């Protein structure tokens, strides 16, 4: 049987190659989804942890435990508590990265051997910090000795802060009678070194400034021997701080929910009271919410592709089956049972599925790398690679794909389906209507999709709400657009014969023989071409829809990020003030020390300009006691205008004109338009506004703006009851000199616009070289990169791109095989035409006209459907994908290059098809063709 099957495959190698192609693509697509999703979610979790690390300056996944022991002298509880703290790793299920023990005595009297005078009282804490010596630099003296000193004097090291505050010197010895078993012979500690932290950003260090204050550090083993485990120790408390640092890099995104639940259980357990809710729970919860949204959204995007692949396999296997009907009847006539024939086809399906899985799974993994670099539709520009690995979930997907694939391929053999690309020719010739045509599924799909459109267009707030809540995309929204494309595509296929008949009727007198024959052939074979036409229409329409969706969602997000940032780089240095001097003399007026602005002169090498921007919250008085919070921005209009821009289409008054109006009015202000609308203000009105210190400024309104660099007119939030709450944000823009005069010297931001082709590297080098401490920094290039790498956006770009490429392959393969089989089936008729004197060029012309009617019509129909689909549905999809950060109005983006790529791809497919058919026609032997009819 196997030999028979292999022979069969050999004899119909092109059909089997096509079937294999569909199966390979099914495996690759199915497997790539979980692999890609896992990789992108893992990266997202890593990013979320890294973000938390950057924001909080602490190891992003750690639990802090605090408890006291020894107050009663009994230390027996320590071991069990330590054990309980350590059990957090196993309970939560994340491996240990590092556990840091910081134990200290309470502050206690230290008697220096070197007298400090009569009044000098020194209180010190003796402490241990595990692995301290590996994270510090000794800046004076030495580190403690490794061996125990013979004279019962322990070596200690101290921070510079303690060293100076306690006026210590290297070699100072302190006695601690209250901590010693024998007061007369107290434990003595000798200061042998002063340390500074090697790297303040080291995750070893905790944000606990008291850690080094009045604290002296002794070797951990000595601390335990002398102050904890010493059976003769007096009664004093030990403060125990234990930091469990988890190896967050080993956490898979799929484990996030389990870890979160396990942490909850741990917190509610015996040792929960020793700690508080760790910060990583917020990271995990946020991740879980994003994970659900991303998983569902990506799956929704992938489903149409998987269905198309399944349909493709079904069609090809149906065709294969119809080609083999004679063979099957021959087997039956020779005594083969239906069961045996079924097993033969099952065997065939298993062979194909096994081969396809061997090829498809590696391709799927390769595809994931491509998806991971998708920066837009059909663009691959992200260099940050994903960690692609074959997961257990991917194996399950592969297994399910194999079962589905085998079922689909075996299905036609039991006569369950006759749907084929080419096999429908027969049905068409017999005048049989396809099921969808008979049951008017095109009208049904269109009806459902239009219902969906009206439903969503009247409830855009619901979409926004669910997007803001981080809920997953409403499946009906995505299906509405898909159903519309499918329904409209089928309707246009239904209309095609009518249109062709109309054209034929009007032009039949003028057609040359080749066109005449082609038109009639197209009318006759309209039904057999339905499936391939639908593939072309879907490829074009979905391609256009996907391109515009991906481009619109991405470009709007990028434009929004760019707008919110306002310019390329914004930073603020640490501003020092005279508050320390005022502690001694409150009569001194408070003032800031302005950083040296001339330090920025070097920026001119890589920027178009840089400028001071005052940006602080202030207020306006509203009635007798009310206040309206307002953002106050002070700018140098000329410099600001050089490095910022706002699209004039967003403004009632052009941006440059607003800047000019402000420049011409030193005491003028520009107000946000929502201010005008709510307060009923007009140009020329005077207003008084206040900074946070209640210094006031009187100004004249010179203009209003709807949008301004970095300005968010409305912020949206979900309140406790789950409703969207919109808050209007007000803004006043004034001249910097005016603000400074009224509010005094205040810390300002520096905004700079990079020159064409320059990166922010120059700025980073300046920061590194000058050691300038910054309190705020934003880099538009990085923010834009972050936007592009957003898992949802990137996943959407990747899957839409992959879908389009796969559809193009399916479409090309299906189209070509349809035409090759069509030519083969018409070989005798074409021979007759050649015998009647039809030139070979006319023959190619005839087939080209047929292709134009089938292919070109489908392309045009697809383009029309695609255009209507994206016009109707993309705004809704965009709303569903938008975030609370979306400020600018949504603009539909149709990138011409996307359309060029799309139509060039489709055009190439048609050209290749005509080229292959030309070769077949050229190779066709007329006499052999005529003989076919005699066989």
């Amino acid at each position: 049987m196997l030999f028979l099957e292999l022979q069969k495959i050999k004899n119909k190698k092109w059909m089997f190659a096509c079937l294999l192609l569909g199966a390979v693509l099914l495996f690759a697509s199915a497997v790539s989804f979980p692999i890609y999703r896992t990789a992108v979610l893992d990266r997202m979790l890593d990013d979320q942890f890294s973000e938390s690390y950057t924001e909080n300056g602490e190891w992003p996944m750690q639990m802090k435990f605090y408890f006291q022991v020894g107050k009663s002298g009994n230390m027996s509880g320590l071991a069990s508590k330590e054990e309980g703290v350590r059990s957090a790793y196993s309970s939560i299920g994340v491996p240990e990265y590092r556990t840091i023990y910081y134990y200290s005595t309470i502050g206690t009297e230290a008697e220096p051997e070197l007298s400090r005078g009569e009044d000098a009282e020194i209180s010190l804490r003796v402490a241990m910090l595990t692995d301290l010596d590996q994270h510090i630099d000794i800046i004076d003296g030495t580190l403690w000795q490794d061996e125990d000193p013979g004279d019962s004097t322990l070596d200690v090291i101290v921070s510079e802060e303690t060293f100076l505050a306690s006026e210590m010197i290297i070699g100072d010895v302190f006695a601690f009678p209250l901590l010693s078993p024998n007061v007369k012979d107290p434990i003595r500690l000798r200061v042998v070194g002063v340390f500074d932290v090697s790297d303040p950003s080291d995750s070893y260090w905790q944000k606990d400034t008291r850690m080094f204050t009045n604290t002296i550090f002794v070797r951990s083993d000595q601390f335990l021997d002398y102050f904890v485990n010493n059976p003769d120790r007096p009664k004093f408390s030990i403060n125990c701080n234990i930091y469990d640092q988890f190896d967050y890099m080993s956490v898979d995104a799929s484990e996030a929910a389990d870890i979160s639940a396990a942490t909850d259980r741990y917190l509610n357990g015996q040792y929960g009271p020793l700690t508080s809710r760790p910060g990583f729970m917020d990271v995990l919860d946020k991740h879980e919410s994003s994970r659900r949204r991303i998983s569902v959204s990506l799956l929704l995007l992938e489903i149409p592709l998987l269905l198309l692949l399944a349909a493709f396999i079904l069609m090809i296997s149906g065709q294969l089956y119809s080609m083999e009907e004679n063979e099957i009847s021959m087997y039956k006539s020779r005594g083969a049972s239906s069961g045996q024939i079924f097993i033969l086809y099952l065997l065939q399906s298993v062979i194909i599925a096994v081969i396809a899985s061997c090829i498809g799974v590696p391709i799927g993994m390769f595809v994931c790398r491509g998806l991971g670099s998708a920066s837009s539709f059909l663009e691959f520009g992200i260099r940050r690679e994903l960690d692609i690995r074959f997961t257990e979930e991917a194996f399950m997907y592969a297994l399910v794909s194999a079962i589905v694939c085998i079922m689909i391929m075996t299905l036609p053999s039991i006569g369950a389906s006759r749907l084929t690309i080419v096999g429908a020719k027969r049905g068409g010739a017999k005048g049989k209507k396809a099921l969808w045509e008979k049951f008017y599924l095109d009208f049904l799909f269109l009806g459902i999709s239009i219902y969906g459109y009206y439903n969503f267009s009247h409830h855009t707030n619901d979409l926004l709400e669910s997007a803001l809540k981080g809920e997953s995309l409403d499946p009906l929204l995505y299906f509405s657009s898909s159903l519309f494309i499918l329904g409209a595509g089928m309707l246009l296929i239904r209309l095609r014969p009518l249109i062709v008949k109309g054209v034929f009727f009007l032009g039949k007198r003028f057609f040359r023989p080749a066109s005449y024959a082609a038109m009639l052939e197209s009318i006759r074979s309209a039904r057999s071409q339905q499936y391939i036409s639908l593939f072309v229409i879907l490829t074009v329409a979905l391609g256009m829809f996907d391109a515009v969706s991906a481009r619109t969602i991405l470009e709007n997000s990028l434009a929004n990020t760019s707008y919110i940032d306002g310019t390329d780089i914004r930073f603020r240095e640490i501003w020092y003030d005279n508050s320390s001097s005022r502690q001694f003399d409150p009569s001194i007026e408070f003032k800031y020390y302005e950083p040296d602005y001339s330090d920025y002169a070097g920026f001119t090498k890589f920027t178009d300009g840089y400028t001071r921007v005052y940006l602080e919250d202030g207020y306006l008085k509203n009635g007798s006691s009310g206040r309206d919070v307002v953002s106050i921005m002070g700018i140098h209009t000329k410099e600001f205008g050089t490095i910022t821009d706002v699209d004039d289409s967003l403004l009632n008054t052009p941006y440059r004109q607003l800047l000019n109006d402000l420049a011409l009015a030193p005491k003028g202000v520009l107000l946000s338009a929502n201010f005008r609308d709510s307060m009923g203000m007009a140009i020329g009105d005077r207003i008084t506004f206040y900074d946070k210190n209640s210094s006031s400024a009187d100004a004249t309104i010179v203009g209003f703006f709807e949008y301004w660099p970095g300005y968010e007119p409305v912020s949206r939030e979900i309140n406790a009851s789950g409703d969207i709450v919109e808050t209007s944000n007000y803004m006043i823009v004034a001249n910097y000199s005016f603000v400074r005069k009224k509010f005094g010297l205040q810390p300002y931001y520096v905004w700079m616009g990079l020159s064409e082709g320059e990166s922010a590297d120059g700025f980073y080098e300046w920061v590194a070289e000058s050691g300038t401490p910054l309190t705020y920094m934003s880099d538009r290039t990085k923010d834009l990169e972050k936007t592009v790498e957003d898992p949802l956006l990137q996943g959407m770009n990747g899957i839409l791109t992959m879908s389009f490429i796969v559809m193009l392959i399916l479409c090309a393969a299906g189209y070509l095989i349809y035409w090759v089989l069509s030519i083969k089936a018409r070989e005798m008729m074409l021979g007759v035409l050649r015998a009647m004197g039809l030139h070979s060029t006319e023959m190619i012309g005839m087939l080209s006209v047929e292709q134009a009617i089938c292919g070109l019509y489908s392309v045009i129909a697809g383009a029309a459907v695609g255009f209507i689909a994206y016009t109707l549905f993309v705004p809704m999809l965009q709303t569903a994908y938008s975030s609370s950060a979306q400020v600018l109005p949504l603009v539909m983006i149709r990138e011409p290059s996307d359309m060029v790529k799309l139509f060039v791809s489709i055009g190439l497919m048609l050209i290749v098809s005509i080229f292959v058919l030309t070769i077949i026609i050229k190779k066709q032997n007329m006499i052999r063709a005529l003989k076919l009819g005699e066989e």
Partner: protein
Amino acid sequence: MGSSVVIKDVTRDFQTPGGKVSVLKGITCSIEADTMCILRGKSGSGKTTLLNMIGALDDPTTGTILIDGKSSTGMSARARENMRRRQLGFVFQSVSLIPSMNAIQNVMFSMRMAGSKENMEKRAMEVLSLVGLSNRMTHMPQEMSGGEQQRVAIARALAHRPKLILADEPTAELDSGMAAQVTRLFKQISEEQHVTVIMTTHDVGLMGAGDQLIELKNGRIEGSDAAE
């Protein structure tokens, strides 16, 4: 007036994996204009090969074929195609109608190919009436019987007023009654429309139907007689 056909020392060899096969081995004969010639022979005798060469579908290995005194063997492919579409009419053994066209469209198609200036519809109706299918004009090929289809094929071969009709086993798939009817139709056309008809057949019963009988055996003419 129909075409005269002169065949001089025509041979046709084919290269096969088993070596050279000579299908025609020096055929010489002539067919007068406005006559109906029956080419008879068993399967493999070379009659279809000879007919293909007369119809400029194939070239002889040696020898010449003159149609109205002009040799088709030296013509360019385009000239031969033009000759086929204007001067010749073909009827094949199997049903050779274009399945996407109905009876009248099939007939008009040959006129369209020949660039006929006549009122195509009128002429098509005329020839379809001639073959007895005036009531089947708008029927599609698959809606007609084999005999009816073959008669449409004859009407198509005739519609553009060719000088020579080449019919390769047109009766092979028909019952004897229908075969005799089709053969009589060819004879009638030859006489009334002034067309030369060359028809191949292996049916002994039809041998007397033509004006001339050429019998082929193993690539040679076994006998050539004018019919009584």
